[in-house]
Every structure is written in C-alpha cells, then in structure tokens.
C-alpha cells in the first residue's frame, strides 16, 4: 500500500513537472502591408516575443514598434514619429484566449479562433483573430493573418497621404514556439 502511494506521488510529481505548459519564442516574425497602387508600404520585424499557455489556452504577443524595418528610412521615421508615436507608445500587444478546442498532444494543424484584445498606440480593441496552430511536443508553430484599421487605434493619417496608405492594414505573423522553463 505504502509503495502504491509512493508510486502515485512519484507519478504525480514527475508527471506535472514533465508536462510543459508554457511555450515561448522571442524571434517571432511579424510583417504588415499597407500598400496601395500609389505606394508600396511593407515593414517587418523579427523580434516579437510571444507565449502560448496550453493549459489555460492563452496566447500573448508583443512587439516593439521601433523594431520594424521599412524599405525607406523616411517611412520608418514617419511610422515611428507621426503614426505610432513610438516614444510614447513603444509596444504593440495582443493577449487572447484560444476558443477553438485544441488537442495539444496531436500534431495536426488546427485553424483556431482566438478572442482577445489588441493594444497599440495607446488604444485597445476587442478582436477575434484566426490562426493556424500546429501543436507538437517540443515545438508549436502558429501563423496568422489579420486586418486592422489605423483609425480604430486613433492613428491619424493626414488627408494629403490618406490615399497612399491602405484603409485596412494586413498583418502577418509567423511564430515557432519552444518549451519554456522558468
């Protein structure tokens, strides 16, 4: 009987310690495209940090706005100084809950719905985004594409250049998570 309790305790301790619930990457890729026929506007950052908690089914994603790289230095300057006001609001982040059930033990790609809040430029908006999530024991891959409207985040675009910037900005995300030990 004692042995059984011991065995049970052993399984419990190591079972829990062995199960990794948080996955992390600090090198997630994020790019956005707000091109119009008048102007190509594409920017990319490889320095987004993101977590997935597979027990709570939660996801968090954040990126520093000054880490975006544009084709032209001038665009980068306008983006940081006039539109995102990076000195005042250096981060953009999304936190949400994965509402589609996912079997984290399988290795099958799932198109999941994530309900959460996107915060940038000091404004927060409720959003439901779709992501392709491929679970794995030592790696989780997630990709997503979402559209945002600058005006929803109080980003004022002068009317003189309004036609050069897309009404809806397409954001693409690619992340490969690894187990995170604290």
């Amino acid at each position, binding site marked *: 009987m004692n042995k059984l309790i011991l065995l049970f305790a052993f399984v419990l301790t190591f079972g829990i310690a062995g199960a990794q619930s948080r996955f992390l990457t*600090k*090198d997630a*890729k994020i790019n956005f495209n707000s091109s119009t026929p008048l102007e190509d506007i594409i920017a990319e950052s*490889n*320095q*987004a*940090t993101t977590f997935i908690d597979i027990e709570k089914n939660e996801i968090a994603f*954040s*990126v*520093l706005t*000054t*880490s975006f790289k544009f084709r*032209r*230095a*001038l665009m*980068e300057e306008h983006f*940081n100084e006039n539109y995102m006001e*990076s*000195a005042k609001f*250096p*981060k953009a982040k999304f936190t949400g809950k994965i509402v589609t059930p996912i079997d984290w033990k399988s290795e099958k790609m799932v198109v999941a719905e994530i309900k959460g809040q996107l915060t940038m430029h000091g404004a927060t908006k409720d959003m439901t985004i779709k992501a392709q999530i491929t679970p794995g024991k030592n790696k989780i891959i997630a990709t997503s594409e979402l559209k945002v409207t600058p005006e929803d985040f109080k980003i004022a675009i002068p009317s003189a250049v309004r036609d050069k910037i897309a009404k809806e900005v397409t954001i693409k995300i690619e992340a490969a998570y690894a187990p995170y030990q604290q």
Partner: protein
Amino acid sequence: MAKLKTFRIILWIFLIGLVVGLSAVYYVFNKPRRNVSKETAAFTLDAKQLISDFKIDEAAATKKYLDQAIMVKGEIKSVRTLDNHSMVFSLEDEMEGVSCTVDSADVVSNSSKLSQLVKGSAGTFKGRCSGMLMDIQVINCVPE
C-alpha cells in the same frame, strides 16, 4: 533684345531652382538609413546596469534609452542565428537580459569578431535600444 536676356536669366534661375528642389526632394525621400555603428554612443554601460534601470522603472528607462545609440557590455549567455541570418547575443540572462541583434549584413562584415563571441565570453555591442519586452532589445548592433 534686353527683354530676351532677362527672360533667359529668369528661365535659367527657374531651371536651376527646379533641379535643386527636385534633388532635395529625392534626397529626403531616399535618405540613407541611420547608421548607429558610426555614431558615438550616448550611453556606455554594463548590461547589468541597463537591466536594473529597466527593472526599477521601465517607463523612465524607456524614455531615457529608446532610440539612443548605446554601448553595452556583458557576459554572453546565448547566441542564436535567426532565419534571416541575423544573430542575437543575449547578455547576462538568456530570457530577461539584454538581447543584441546584429543584422545579416553586419554579421558578414564582422564575421571574425563575432566568431570569438561565444557563450560564456564577454561581449560589447553598440546598437540602438528599442525598448523592453521580456528582455531589453538593442538592434542594429555591431560588436566593438
């Protein structure tokens, strides 16, 4: 005859003005990217100091260091190469330390220096501070 001469002069002034104006617009539009490696660092400090500044008051530290050219020194805890061939050196702590990113073009031009910067050695990088997520990020870095 005199009228024609004045007209010619005005035309020339106008043409020169146009060329100067257009080249100014062209220059501003295509202005070169900021090259932090050629700037003098606004702050030279230990990675540990930078980490403690951000831990004590993130907002104040962000205000102080954001977009500044900084030179930071610390023990290298991890070295990673990303898909786009840029390299990330984490100083003092792999997760919550200072991450210095060297762009792929600078990886090529500094390859001999970078090859000596292995895990456990001391590294000094100059770059542009872009703020803190989990770690403090310094981008467009070059090794010193």
